[in-house]
Each structure stands twice: as structure tokens, then as C-alpha cells.
């Protein structure tokens, strides 16, 4: 009788469309969320423990990809993001299993979360050619001018992904950033990074250009300060700073002020920062947080 050798997946980073190991060579143990009866945590996998240099490489990749992604037509970006939802649907079983393990949910709840995450991509994909009409437009001015405001992407956005909601939360913070033409460096949930790597695999196989979304797994407290102070990062989403070990989001905001980054604070106030509930259908606030407004004055002739 032949016994088959297990083929286990190596969970790596996702940088510039490739899946490299951490340059530091480190990895860390990821365990399943406790589900009650077990006393010892169940081992899931070794994930790459990204370093500041991985984050730096990811910023370089994101910067390189940004003009091309922002230059694609809104229609095209919408199509590409819809494709992500299609690919996720095809990998549903894997996503459900990883969300179950990560968040300790029942099968039915995990199915629901994955469905919501896929629907969230579709929801944001649909906005790609519509938000400029909602957030921009013709301004009435007291003079013979057309005065037009148009939203434009901010550039490279660092995203601290939510610590608890490992897939739905992740999609809910990444999709609004990239739909407008930003590129991003995502620091995945520290203790629940595997769904983020699953998502990276979906992105890698769905026409999203390499470098548009980069995923670094590891210790949030180690990586986040370098992204917050990085001068080639134009904005930072601090959602995942809530409930992260050893992270004070106010420090990150101070570091981010050095190059006038746009900062999206975590939910709640002050030290009471909490992770928002990602289940309800969102509004445009996350999308509009990472936009700049370009206003053009044009003489009105006869």
C-alpha cells in the first residue's frame, strides 16, 4: 500500500504580483481560533513573518504599479475587480475553510461571511465608474467659468487590515482603496493572516496587475510604524491598529503627519478604538477617504 505524502502549502507574502518569502527568512506559527473545548490551540500553518524591508519592497512595487492602475479606464478597473469576485467564488471552499479556522465560525456562518466578502467586491467594483459623478461635478461659481471638480486617487495607501474580520473586513478595507486607482500595501491580520494570502492568490489570478495590492503578513506592531513614517506612502488606513498588540494608533498618526499623509483613523475614539462591524452594506466614506479633488476652472465663452 502506498501512503501519500502530505503536500502542505507554504504561506508567503504577496509583493509585486509574486509570492516571495520574507527577506528576513522568518516565519511564525498561525493557530486556529479557539472553539471552546480544546485547551491547546490547533496549529494551522507557518506564515511568513514580514519585516520592514518587505514592507519597503512592497511600497516600491505599489508605487511602480500606481500610474498604470490609475491610468486604466474606470470601466476596466470595474471589470477587473468584478473578476476578483468571480475567482473568489471559484475558490469558495478554500476560503470558507480558512475563515472557519481563523475566526472559529460554524460552517454556515463562514459561508455567509465568504458570500458577503464576494458581494462586497461586486459592490465596490460597480462604483468604479460612478463615484466620480457622486463625489465630483460642476461647481456653481460667480463668474464666467466652468468649474469642475474631479476626484483622483491619492497614490500609494498603506492599509492595516482589521485584526478580527480576516476576510470580509479585509475586502472591505482593500476594495475601496483600489477601486479608485490607488495601489496598496496591506498588513494582514497578525493572528489571522491565512485568508489574506488566499485573497492574494485570487488577486494574482484575476487580471489585477502585480503591485496593485501587496500583502505582508507578520507583526503589525513591527511593520506599521515603518509604513506610517514612509515618505513614499500617501495615505494610511489605521483600521487594523485597533486591537493590535503593542500598537498605539495615535503614534502612527503622528508619524504619518511628517509627510502629510491622509489618515483614516480606526473606529471608536481614543484608546477605545474598536474594529467596526463590516456586515452592513457600507457607504462611500472609505472610498472617498483616499481621494484627492482636482478642480479645473475653464473660461466660458460664447
Amino acid at each position, binding site marked *: 500500500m502506498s501512503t501519500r505524502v502530505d503536500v502542505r502549502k507554504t504561506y508567503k507574502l504577496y509583493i509585486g504580483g509574486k509570492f516571495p518569502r520574507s527577506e528576513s527568512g522568518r516565519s511564525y506559527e498561525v493557530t486556529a481560533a479557539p472553539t471552546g473545548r480544546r485547551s491547546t490551540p490547533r496549529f494551522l500553518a507557518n506564515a511568513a513573518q514580514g519585516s520592514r524591508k518587505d514592507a519597503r519592497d512592497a*511600497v516600491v512595487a505599489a508605487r511602480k504599479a500606481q500610474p498604470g492602475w490609475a491610468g486604466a479606464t474606470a470601466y476596466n478597473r470595474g471589470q477587473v475587480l468584478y473578476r476578483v469576485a468571480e475567482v473568489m467564488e471559484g475558490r469558495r471552499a478554500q476560503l470558507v475553510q480558512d475563515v472557519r479556522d481563523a475566526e472559529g465560525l460554524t460552517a454556515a456562518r463562514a459561508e455567509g461571511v465568504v458570500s458577503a466578502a464576494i458581494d462586497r467586491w461586486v459592490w465596490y467594483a460597480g462604483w468604479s465608474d460612478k463615484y466620480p459623478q457622486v463625489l465630483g461635478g460642476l461647481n456653481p461659481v460667480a463668474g464666467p467659468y466652468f468649474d469642475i471638480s474631479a476626484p483622483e486617487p491619492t497614490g500609494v495607501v498603506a492599509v492595516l487590515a482589521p485584526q478580527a474580520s480576516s476576510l470580509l473586513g479585509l475586502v472591505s478595507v482593500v476594495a475601496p482603496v483600489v477601486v479608485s486607482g490607488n495601489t496598496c500595501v496591506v498588513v494582514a491580520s497578525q493572528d489571522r493572516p491565512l485568508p489574506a494570502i488566499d485573497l492574494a492568490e485570487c488577486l494574482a489570478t484575476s487580471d489585477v496587475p502585480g503591485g496593485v495590492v501587496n500583502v505582508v503578513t507578520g507583526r503589525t506592531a513591527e511593520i506599521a510604524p*515603518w509604513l506610517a*513614517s*514612509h*515618505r*513614499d*506612502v500617501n495615505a494610511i488606513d489605521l483600521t487594523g491598529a485597533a486591537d493590535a498588540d503593542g500598537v498605539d494608533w495615535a503614534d502612527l498618526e503622528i*508619524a504619518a503627519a511628517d509627510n502629510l499623509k491622509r489618515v483614516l483613523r480606526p473606529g471608536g475614539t481614543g484608546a477605545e478604538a474598536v474594529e467596526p462591524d463590516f456586515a452592513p452594506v457600507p457607504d462611500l466614506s472609505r472610498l472617498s477617504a483616499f481621494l484627492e479633488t482636482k478642480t479645473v476652472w475653464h473660461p466660458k465663452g460664447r
Partner: protein
Amino acid sequence: MTGPRQRPYTRRVSTATDVDVTARARDLLGVSRLTNSALTGWLHGLPGVDQVGCEARAAGLSTRSIKTSSKAWAIDLAISMIDLTTLEGADTPGKVRGLATRALVPDPTAPDTPSPAAVCVYGDMVGIAKETLGDSGVKVAAVATAFPSGRASRAVKLADTRDAVAAGADEIDMVIDRGAFLAGDYLSVFREIAETKEACGDARLKVIMETGELVTYDNVRRASWLSMLAGGDFVKTSTGKISPAATLPVTLTMLEAVRDWHDLTGEQVGVKPAGGIRTSKDAIRYLVTVHEIAGEAWLDNHWFRFGASSLLNDLVLQRQRMATGAYSGADYVADDAPSAY
């Protein structure tokens, strides 16, 4: 590595300029008349380069980790070794002035940043670069001898050189006639270098091998020895117009050649890799190689240069990173390729 197998040479000489290179070459080769066959015998008598060993050595030297204060020192040294280069058909006086200004003030936010060694331009732009640089100490290097192909008559090449020197060039970057070299006409290459050196007057002569066209490391070694024999002050890898341009193994081969030449004649010759060196990490790898192969005497911008343009920005970014503790970005350095309009 050893020198040529011919008769040992004992006379010590200071610089190539004070000696008749042909007489010295005869002396070195141990012949009464410098012929192509004598040169061929001598150059082909050089030991062959072990390709695998050379590449492994270069790869090994690339893995050295240079940190903190050593890195800061290396970054400043590398900046001071740059020949800040623009060699485009579309070079405008404005672009050359911009580049020269950049050489004077590489980073306006950090006035203590050292200046690059030289600005490298086409011969007709020397005057414009000189106007801006004045007596700042930043030199003007001009490419000459029908750069980059080197396909012109000897008279035209020499006129090209004299023209650049007359315009005030401190250094001349010449290209060798690769066609003649590959055809085995070493004497013609020798004469051309020697005559160009004469046309240079006080200007230092860098001899570009265009190693991407020479194909083998053996050829790189032979071309380096031939250039030094003919009186070149620098051996330079590439024009930057051909790929592959400078690589670490090629530079390593050249560094071995200048080291052995120094052992043989007592005369020091510089090395300049050019083209394709874009990051601080690359530059530091080269510096490690210089130190390990040629020695500390070459860790000076009189003896080692980088032919580069975008390298300066990356070094400045690294410098800012070390000064501020935060990663810097392209918004904080001068635009590498400003629009011509």
C-alpha cells in the same frame, strides 16, 4: 593572478604621460619593434579568466552586508565617485545645466552631501557644463572618438578629442574600436588609444571597452591590458548604450587587471563601471569588490568611478533614510528625467 609570462619588468614609472608608451610597450613585451603579432602573443599569453570562478567570486562578494556607519560612509563615497551622465541625442543646454547644478547640490535638504566627481556629457556640451561648474572641483568629462560606436576615421576621432579638450574637458571617455579588437588588430587599437592620449594633453583618458560586445572575460582582460599598455588612465566597462552594460564579474576582471598592472609597473590605473548601476545596494557591492580585489588605494574617486545617472537619486534616498530614520520617496529628490519643455 599573475602578470604576463614574458620577461620580468623592473623599471618603475610614475604616470603614463611622462613616458613614450610605444617604447615602454616594446620594453614590456621584450621586442625590438612593436608589431601586431608581438601584441597578440603578449595578450594571448595572459592567463585565461575562469568564468565560473569569477562569477562565483563576484556573487560571493555581493552577499556582504554593510550596515550603519560603514553604510553611511560607503554611500557618501559612492556619491563622490559618480560621473553624473547624460548622453542623449535630445540633450539640451538646459538639461546639461540642470545636471551640472545637480552635481553642485545633490540634495538641497542636506548641504553636507558630497558632490559627484564629474559631469559626463557629449563634447559639444562641455562648455555649457563648465560654465555652471566653474572651479567647484566637479570635473567635466566628455565622450569622444565617435562615441558610442567608435566607427569613424582616426582623424575624425582625434579631432573629436581635441575639440572636447579645447572646450575645457578635464577627462575624455574614448571608445575602443571593437571591430579592430575582435578582428585581432590589436596594434591599431593600441595606436588609436596612444594617439588619443596624446591628443588629451593634461586631460585624463578613460578607455571604454564596451564589454557587452567583447563577449568573453578573456577579451575583457586583454582589452584592459592593451588599454593600460597604450597609456589609458582609466579602464571603463561600457558606453551604457549596449546591454549588458557593467556587470560585477566584468568589473572584477578589470580590477584584477589594474591591480596586476600596478604590481608590474608601479603605475595606478582607475576603473569605471558604467551603465546599469542604479541602486545603492549595487554601488556598495562594487565598493566591496574594489576593496577586496584592487585594495584600499582604489577607494577614492581619483581611481574609481561610477558612470550613472539614476544612481545618485537612490544614494540620496538612502542618505535621507539614514538621516531621518524614515523611508524616503521619489518626491524628495530631484526629477531624474525632467521634461525638455
